[in-house]
């Protein structure tokens, strides 16, 4: 009986079946569930969360040249972080099978940009397999590991949000233990530029061999039809093509780098017009055009931005059989995501708003601080950028700039810029939001949490000690729910001539051990309430207004963070038990 699996679960399954013995990655939507599935179902693959993607990649590289099969997972922008290692690994080549999953996010469902990592793979001379459904997520993971050993080359498995986050039926098998490949410590293969020059031609030879393989690769599949229209497609777009143009001839490319020149030329010669339907950039299209083929239409018709869908293809092709939806005809109010009830970031963003500072933010749940009601995060670029950006804004002459970064993001890439700020004598106010979790991706543990991916106790990184060791003299740790303390600490940091760090500490409210705590909710004593409305101004979603203007705390939502009680002058907000 096939299993009904998420694309990411199918990748995990494939890795397990193919005998993978080491998995590393950093959480990032849409890649996170791969390692989460391995932890839950297949711990014998030795999954772990790394401090960042570069570390994950390098650990994997070491294990692979050491002879074992490896999977490394990350979202598309994670590969930018790992790019240093990614670009150089193919020179040495691998011993054990090595596959890096690059989970791209067309449509930017939960990312800061759209980025087509097929270009990175081409630059890094790394072959790509691109599955089209959940079954292929499993199959291609296994094939990529095999091919990686066959060609001594690292492989990229490229997925997209829709592929990673859709479920389908998957035929599965059992685990096959792969034998360990031989490793010899050899400077000529793994070391310095003088030897690299000798390896350089080998990289080109390998790409030539892979190009030849690509011509007959079973994943590059021709489905000819008696039709003037042919379509070249890859990834989940293949499914949309089959749905929208069932009668067209199709070349489905499951291997998108290196591309097969002869197969492409022959296919195009077979049809009057060939559409190229690929999500993202014109990666296949540019290559086909470079072959001198002229009867192709791609991005001019289908566009480079956002996700594709059957509706979008029908519209681009002006097909008559498109469903005709009714139109609501009115603009509906949005329902933007917001910080959770009792989230420890709320007090910090209330303080930042109150102090009217410029906030250089980072990647995490706290990007929601840019939205109403706080509107107190003014820049967000990429992992760790808050610190450098804040230093830069100060250097550009702007006053009262605050950098805000989460604990996980700080560990990921916030440490070098903080060292740099101290070293170069910058002025910087940095808030580390320490909720002991990688919150936005689902609360994965990190080195500041004191436990590993399996939930086992491990060394807990002391953030204060880390900052002090870097030379930060002013480090202040505050309970994140004590609003006056947060404001005081922030003011003191802003007044400090140098680098000052405020650690706002308190666990993520979504962590299971926090969420399932029995907590006594707060309630409003209407006898004491003066309807001053101060409690409404803490913007807690659990505080509603009754028809006669009294605040009302929804007991099932309240997590007893105490913030509303702190602002209540007449002391009308009390624990339910005390009030009774």
């Amino acid at each position: 009986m096939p299993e009904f699996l998420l694309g990411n679960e199918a990748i995990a399954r494939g890795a397990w079946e193919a005998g993978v013995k080491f998995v590393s990655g950093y959480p990032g939507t849409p890649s996170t569930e791969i390692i989460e599935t391995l932890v839950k179902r297949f711990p014998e693959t030795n999954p772990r969360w790394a401090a960042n993607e570069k570390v994950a990649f390098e650990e994997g590289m070491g294990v692979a040249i050491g002879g074992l099969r490896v999977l490394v997972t990350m979202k598309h922008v994670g590969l930018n972080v790992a790019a240093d290692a990614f670009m150089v690994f193919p020179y040495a080549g691998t011993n054990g099978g090595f596959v890096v999953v690059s989970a791209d996010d067309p449509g930017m469902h939960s990312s800061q940009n759209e980025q087509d990592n097929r270009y990175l793979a081409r630059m890094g001379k790394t072959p790509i397999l691109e599955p089209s459904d959940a079954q292929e997520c499993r199959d291609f993971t296994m094939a990529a590991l095999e091919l990686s050993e066959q060609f001594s080359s690292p492989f990229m498995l490229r997925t997209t949000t829709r592929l990673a986050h859709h479920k389908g039926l998957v035929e599965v098998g059992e685990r096959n233990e792969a034998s360990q490949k031989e490793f010899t410590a050899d400077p000529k293969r793994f070391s310095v530029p003088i030897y690299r020059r000798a390896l350089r031609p080998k990289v080109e030879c390998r790409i030539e061999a892979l190009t030849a393989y690509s011509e007959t690769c079973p994943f590059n599949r021709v489905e000819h039809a008696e039709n003037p229209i042919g379509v070249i497609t890859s990834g989940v777009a293949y499914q949309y093509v089959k749905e929208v143009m069932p009668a067209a001839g199709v070349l489905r490319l499951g291997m998108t780098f290196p591309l097969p020149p002869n197969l492409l030329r022959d296919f195009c010669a077979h049809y009057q017009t060939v559409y190229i339907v690929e999500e993202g950039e014109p990666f296949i299209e540019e290559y086909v055009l470079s072959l001198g083929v002229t009867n192709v239409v791609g991005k001019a018709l289908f566009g480079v931005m956002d996700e594709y869908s059957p509706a979008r293809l029908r519209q681009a092709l002006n097909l008559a059989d498109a469903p005709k939806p009714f139109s609501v005809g009115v603009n509906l109010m949005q329902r933007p995501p917001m910080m959770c009830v009792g989230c420890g970031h709320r007090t910090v963003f209330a303080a930042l708003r109150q102090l009217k500072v410029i906030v250089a933010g980072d990647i995490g749940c706290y990007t929601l601080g840019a939205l109403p009601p706080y509107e107190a995060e003014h820049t967000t670029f990429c992992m760790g950028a808050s610190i450098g950006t804040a230093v830069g804004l100060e250097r550009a002459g702007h006053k009262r700039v605050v950098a805000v970064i989460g604990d996980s993001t700080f560990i990921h890439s916030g440490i070098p810029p903080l060292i740099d700020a101290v070293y170069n004598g910058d002025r910087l106010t940095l808030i580390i939001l320490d909720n002991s979790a990688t919150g936005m991706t689902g609360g994965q543990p990190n080195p500041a949490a004191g436990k590993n991916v399996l939930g086992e106790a491990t060394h807990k990184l002391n953030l204060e000690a880390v900052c002090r060791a870097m030379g930060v003299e002013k480090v202040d740790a505050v309970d994140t729910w004590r609003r006056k303390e947060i404001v005081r600490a922030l003011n003191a940091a802003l007044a400090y001539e140098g680098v000052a760090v405020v650690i706002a500490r308190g666990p993520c409210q979504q962590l299971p051990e926090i969420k399932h705590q029995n907590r006594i909710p707060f309630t409003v004593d209407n006898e004491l309430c003066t309807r001053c409305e101060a409690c409404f101004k803490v913007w807690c979603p659990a505080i509603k207004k009754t028809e006669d203007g009294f605040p009302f705390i929804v007991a099932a939502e309240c997590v007893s963070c105490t913030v509303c009680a702190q602002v209540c002058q007449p002391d009308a907000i009390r624990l339910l038990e005390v009030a009774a």
Partner: protein
Amino acid sequence: MNKTHGLMFAGVGGQGALLIAELTSLAAVQEGYDVKQTEVHGVSQRGGSVETHVRFSRFAKVRSPIVTPGEADVVIGLEKLEALRFAHFVQPETGVILVNDYEIIPGSVTDAEKLYPHETIEFLRSKNLRVMALPASQIAKTLGDGRMANVVLLGALSTLLPFQPATWQKTLSFRLPSKYLEANQRAFEAGRKAI
């Protein structure tokens, strides 16, 4: 029949739209259909809109996991505003909008109470769409836990889909934790009867 069925589950993060979509998919798998399901994770978990697509087909392979606007057999709205937001996915002549008569006012929007489309059900009916409304949250509350509104709605949905009652029972039993199974079975039955 060679048709690919489409369902759209819409709600607010935390309401359990994903769970009932998955139960429906698993029931379809049990019945021998090819099935695909898709949703978008990420920050949508933080109280934002949530949409989950389910497509299933008896004989042909399901291709796209995405439901196209205008082709859904049923749009399942766990909340009125979200039902309205995704109503255009319904097949306008033959489809059904199944909606929980329940409001969750967006927390981070100014004047949300005033802007909220309280008359959603009447509005959709005025567009000649087939609307089935039930007070799923209320029913769940009387059964002891308002959070089971999703399963009440699933019970109602089960009357619109071609799956055997035994298939639903089997699916609930193997997918839900045994601790909550009995309560959820009651919620499911209450939903079946509410239509």
